[in-house]
């Protein structure tokens, strides 16, 4: 491997100083009623980097507001079109101002104000045509692995995930941190039973206590939901209990110390490995913390992830809006069946006797290549999933960020 710290990347420089690895125009609908118009506008720009995100709810929510602010000013985002129906609760003017203050071109199309679906689409298409021309001359700048934020999730896990893909992704995470980069892991609902082991990796004792409290909260929350983070496919793939899935999932965090706890859409304040606390604070109000993998990915991206590693044994196919998702396939049989969807075959640690370290290095090199502009499989296949729902959070406490 080349020396990690000297790996050169090229980033898109934003006026707020962020460096992106993609140059995306986001179309964001601000209520479900505006989603069709957003999709129709995007549909006119097939093949262009135009991604649709949005919030479907008509009731206001501080978490969703914060997520949308963070996503619309993500490093990979160059410009934003907001699509509003007109009567929804989302504070469109505050979001528009926030994006414009970041230096990104932004506009708002109100469907009621424009005179309906057809006119709103025309307005949006006009803005997108202009802004895509503008973005084609975005300033680029030198970027290094130390500028990168990389997230990790697992989905469609089976019993190979914890022995092949997750430890391999963990090794790649260690390499990113060693090169001065930042890594994010989440899903405290899959850490139940591992509180002490995870807390022992905290950079100081108060953070260790905070980690234990975070996982205890997840345990209480999922008990109330009456259902852990476990799907029937996990069992068909040989996983029997939530504990078993959790331990296997934990290996994707690597071995570096944990520098802090962040909440979704908080930017990590320094380099290193951070735990994202995804379970809402207070009594359960809005249901399952993250009802699917896409809502987990959206939170990692909102906290600044330039790209997200996704380990899967059964074979998930999802990608994401805004940031490329890199698929690491745990099961060699699944890889053979679904090769087009998989960037890395970590199953070779079982089928060919490859080491976890060697696969981890291959994942690291894939992160570098994708950061340099190579499309990941899910990008190539057009995946741009995005899910955002309701949650309630209190700010992270002082012990969370030593």
């Amino acid at each position, binding site marked *: 491997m080349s020396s990690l710290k000297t790996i050169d990347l090229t980033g898109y420089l934003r006026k707020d100083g962020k460096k992106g690895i993609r140059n995306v125009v986001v179309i964001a609908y601000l209520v479900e009623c505006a989603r069709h118009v957003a999709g129709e506008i995007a549909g006119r720009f097939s093949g262009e980097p135009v991604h649709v995100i949005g919030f479907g709810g008509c009731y206001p929510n501080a978490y969703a507001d914060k997520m949308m602010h963070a996503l619309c000013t993500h490093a990979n985002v160059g410009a934003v079109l907001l699509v509003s129906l007109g009567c929804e609760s989302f504070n469109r003017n505050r979001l528009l101002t926030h994006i414009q203050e970041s230096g990104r071109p932004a506009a708002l199309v109100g469907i009621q104000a424009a005179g309906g679906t057809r006119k709103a689409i025309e307005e949006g298409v006009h803005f997108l045509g202009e802004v895509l021309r503008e973005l084609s001359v975005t300033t680029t700048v030198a970027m290094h692995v130390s500028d990168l934020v990389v997230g990790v999730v697992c989905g469609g896990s*089976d*019993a*190979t*995930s*914890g*022995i092949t893909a997750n430890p391999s992704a963990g090794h790649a995470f260690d390499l990113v941190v060693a090169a001065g980069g930042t890594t994010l892991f989440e899903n405290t609902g899959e850490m*139940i*039973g*591992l509180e002490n082991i995870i807390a022992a990796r905290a950079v100081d004792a108060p953070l260790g206590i905070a980690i234990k409290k975070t996982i205890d909260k997840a*345990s209480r929350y*999922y*008990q109330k939901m*009456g*259902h*852990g983070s*476990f*799907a*029937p496919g996990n*069992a068909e*793939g*040989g*996983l*029997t*209990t*939530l*504990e*078993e899935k959790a*331990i*296997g999932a934990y290996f994707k965090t690597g071995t570096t110390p944990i520098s802090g706890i962040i909440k979704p859409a908080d930017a990590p304040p320094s380099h290193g490995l951070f735990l994202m606390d995804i379970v809402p604070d207070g009594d359960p109000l809005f249901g399952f913390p993250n009802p699917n993998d896409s809502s987990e990915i959206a939170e990692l991206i909102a906290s600044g992830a330039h790209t997200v590693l996704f380990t899967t*044994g059964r074979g998930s196919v999802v990608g994401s809006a805004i940031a490329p998702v890199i698929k690491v396939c745990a*099961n*060699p*049989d699944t890889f053979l069946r679904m090769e087009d969807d998989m960037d890395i075959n970590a*199953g070779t640690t*079982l*089928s060919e*006797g490859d080491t976890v370290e060697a696969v981890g290095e291959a994942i690291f090199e894939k992160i570098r290549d994708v950061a340099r502009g190579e499309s990941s499989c899910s990008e190539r296949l057009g995946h741009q999933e995005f899910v955002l729902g309701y949650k309630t959070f209190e700010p992270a406490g002082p012990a969370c960020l030593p």
Partner: protein
Amino acid sequence: MDQLKRINPRDNVLVVCKRLNEGDMLEIGGQQIVVSHALGLGHKVAAVALKAGDPVVKFGLPIGVATTAIAAGEHIHLHNMKSNFISTYTLDHEFIKNH
């Protein structure tokens, strides 16, 4: 590659690393065992005989408990072990029973 792997020395389960077919012969703890049904990658078999209530240990950590006696070499899954935390949902679950 070995067909079965003990991930951690403390484990009382072995993990299938190469698909097992019905009738395959395994040697576990010096005993010859005939595989009773096909098992895909990652599935678990008992490394030793377990009693009901014994912890099932994988990755060196408890992943649940045996709900019946389990013979060495027997497949360990939903039919003979359970979580210490929350029951495992499968597609056989009948929602109506909860209402």
